């Protein structure tokens, strides 16, 4: 585990990196900070540091691509994008049929500038393979959507084969075999990252609303003096803290991510972020409804992040179904 001094320093560097305007500049700064090396050396402990701050800053980067690629045991880098499952889904975005690959997934902001993209694909027998393809062979259609700044693209491709000369290339038939457990582990890491990004975004919405509450004066008082306003903001802090506690507890003693807990953290993060957004927008009122105020950027972000790697509603229902099958609660992390 990282000591606090190292964590603090890394946190500060990451914060500075996320102050860059463009995704390309953020990516360059992250490379300078050595985020991928930190991920290799320190493991999952760097995930909260990075994604929490990315969320707080409303920044975009290919960090999720790096995380998922690394989690599958493949070499990550600025030139390698990771194709995410389609919005609202968490199944593999690729299918292998007769030795050829079909892709339907989501590209991240990295995709446009990367030469390769890792596609997780299921074969006819359900076995998973990670295939690295040339990005140019995929059709990428920018998704405007509610959060154009996130830079998501709809990725499609048919009849593809693995690109040449990549280290990830396996032998037969193409790509690298991925155990189901490895994908579950990667999903868990990704969900944990998104939970932190959602909570970071929630923190900023709350900060914006609190700043407004102590400066905006109506009826002769700062609106933060009115109990209805105070209680909305208090409720928002409880929501953020509960997300962070759950996300923190998803990392086990030995630095492993609990898949079950990461799913719960992601679901809580999505739901709590909506709660925070609702309360904070009400407190910000008119100004919070403008394009000029920063609030909407964060609101747009949480609406979108909730749908990546499993949305809150689906994860929650699936958890309930699983508990009903098992007929018992899983033991929580020990004291």
């Amino acid at each position, binding site marked *: 585990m990282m000591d606090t001094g190292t964590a603090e320093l890394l946190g500060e560097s990451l914060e500075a990196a996320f102050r860059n305007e463009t995704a390309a500049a953020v990516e360059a700064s992250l490379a300078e900070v050595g985020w991928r090396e930190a991920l290799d050396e320190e493991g999952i402990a760097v995930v909260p540091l990075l994604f929490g701050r990315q969320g707080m800053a409303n920044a975009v980067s290919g960090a999720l691509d790096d995380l998922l690629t690394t989690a599958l045991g493949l070499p990550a880098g600025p030139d390698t994008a990771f194709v995410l499952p389609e919005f609202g889904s968490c199944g593999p975005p690729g299918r292998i049929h007769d030795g050829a690959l079909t892709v339907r997934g989501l590209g991240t902001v990295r995709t446009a500038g990367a030469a390769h993209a890792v596609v997780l694909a299921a074969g006819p027998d359900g076995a998973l393979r990670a295939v690295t393809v040339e990005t140019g062979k995929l059709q990428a259609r920018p998704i405007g959507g509610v959060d154009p700044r996130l830079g998501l693209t709809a990725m499609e491709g048919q009849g593809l084969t693995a690109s040449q000369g990549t280290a990830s290339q396996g032998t037969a038939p193409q790509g690298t075999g991925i155990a189901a457990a490895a994908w579950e582990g990667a999903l868990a890491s990704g969900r944990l990252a998104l939970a932190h990004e959602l909570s970071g975004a929630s923190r900023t919405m*709350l900060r914006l609303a*609190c700043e407004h*509450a*102590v400066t905006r004066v109506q009826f002769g*008082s*700062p609106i*933060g*003096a*009115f*109990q209805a*306003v*105070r*209680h909305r*903001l*208090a*409720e928002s*802090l*409880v929501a953020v*803290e*509960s*997300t962070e*506690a*759950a996300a*923190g*507890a998803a990392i086990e003693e030995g630095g492993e991510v609990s898949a079950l*807990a990461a799913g*719960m953290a992601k*679901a*809580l993060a999505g*739901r709590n972020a909506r709660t925070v957004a609702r309360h904070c927008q009400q407190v910000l009122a008119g100004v919070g409804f403008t394009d000029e105020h920063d609030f909407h950027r964060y609101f747009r972000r949480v609406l979108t992040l909730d749908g990546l790697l499993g949305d809150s*509603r689906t*994860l*929650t*229902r*699936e*958890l*309930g*179904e699983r*508990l*009903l099958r098992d*007929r*018992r*609660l899983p033991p*929580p*992390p*020990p*004291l």
Partner: protein
Amino acid sequence: MDLPEFRAGLDAWLDEHEPELRMEAGPDVAFDQEIEHLSKVKRTTYDAGWMRRGWPERVGGLGGSTLLRAYLGEALASRDLIEPGIYSMTEVLAPTMIEFAPAGLAAEMVPRLLRGDETWCQGFSEPGSGSDLGSLACRARRDGGSWHVIGQKVWTSLAQYAHRCVLLVRTGTPESGSRGITALFVDMDSPGVTVRPIRAMHGRDEFCEVFFDDVRVPLERTLGEAGGGWAVAMDLLPYERSTSLWHRGAYLRQRLGRLLASVPDGTIDPGDLGAVAQLAFALHARSRGTQHRMERGERLGPETSVDKVLLATTEQAVFDLVADAVPAAVAVGGDAAAGRWRTEFLYSRAATVYGGSAEIQRGIIARRLLGLGAER
């Protein structure tokens, strides 16, 4: 003894002794029997040494980390051997005594509480002072070597069983607010103390009215400074939201587990269940952090209001799920299991009231954690 060693030892001991610590369940189990049973559990675990861990040696403990206390209550609640509401009063009252009572008094009294030889109560609320504790009016006048207490308390849990009471009284002028309050440690068998139990909504004499008619309390029974009662009360409240809350969290998971194991297929909506399980997980995670902060000796403060809001929300969500899953049991069921769900569902409605209401907690969060300044 560290936590892993304590856990392993206690788990093994409980495997062996669980049968004798089990409460006879049934619709007719009276509160008296529950209190008696609690004393038995405390005595047995004290005599076996478990209950003494995590408490300082000067009050009869065996030392060690506060996590041991947290785990003991968790283990007992998970096995359904205690009701944490009454068990965990110790976690609120003993630390107050250790911090504020004269050393000799704490050394004499705390072991009796830990061992279950005595029951104590907490006399804060009054008919005119609930949330606004600083306005309390029960008065104490100093006369030579004693305080003379005149007034009334209400909602005092367990007062009908209690041997002692941690009592807040007004010793300053009526207008002195929080500055004019003193904390006393009062023998409940003192002449002039009258206790009248109050039947609560869930069918138990949960709490009482307590009347003080010129009750003499020796000055040595002052907790903290004369006029320093507010500090005592403020110090005690975070405890209510740390170890006790951890115990209650364990109990809620145990009840949720019981519901899962016992309901017929198709009675629980998976989405609702998933949401409640997530709440319980977040509560556990949050409270776990608080236990570790306490163990490191950090001073607990307003941030524990977040824990309390999460607990109250989770508790009501758990029993709302129960009411949706087994509505007939809660509304019209006649067997012991149904009676218990009904009692627990009704009791859960108080979770947003006692120990500082949901609104008061949000007020603390707004002022102390979010820096929103004073309320208008």
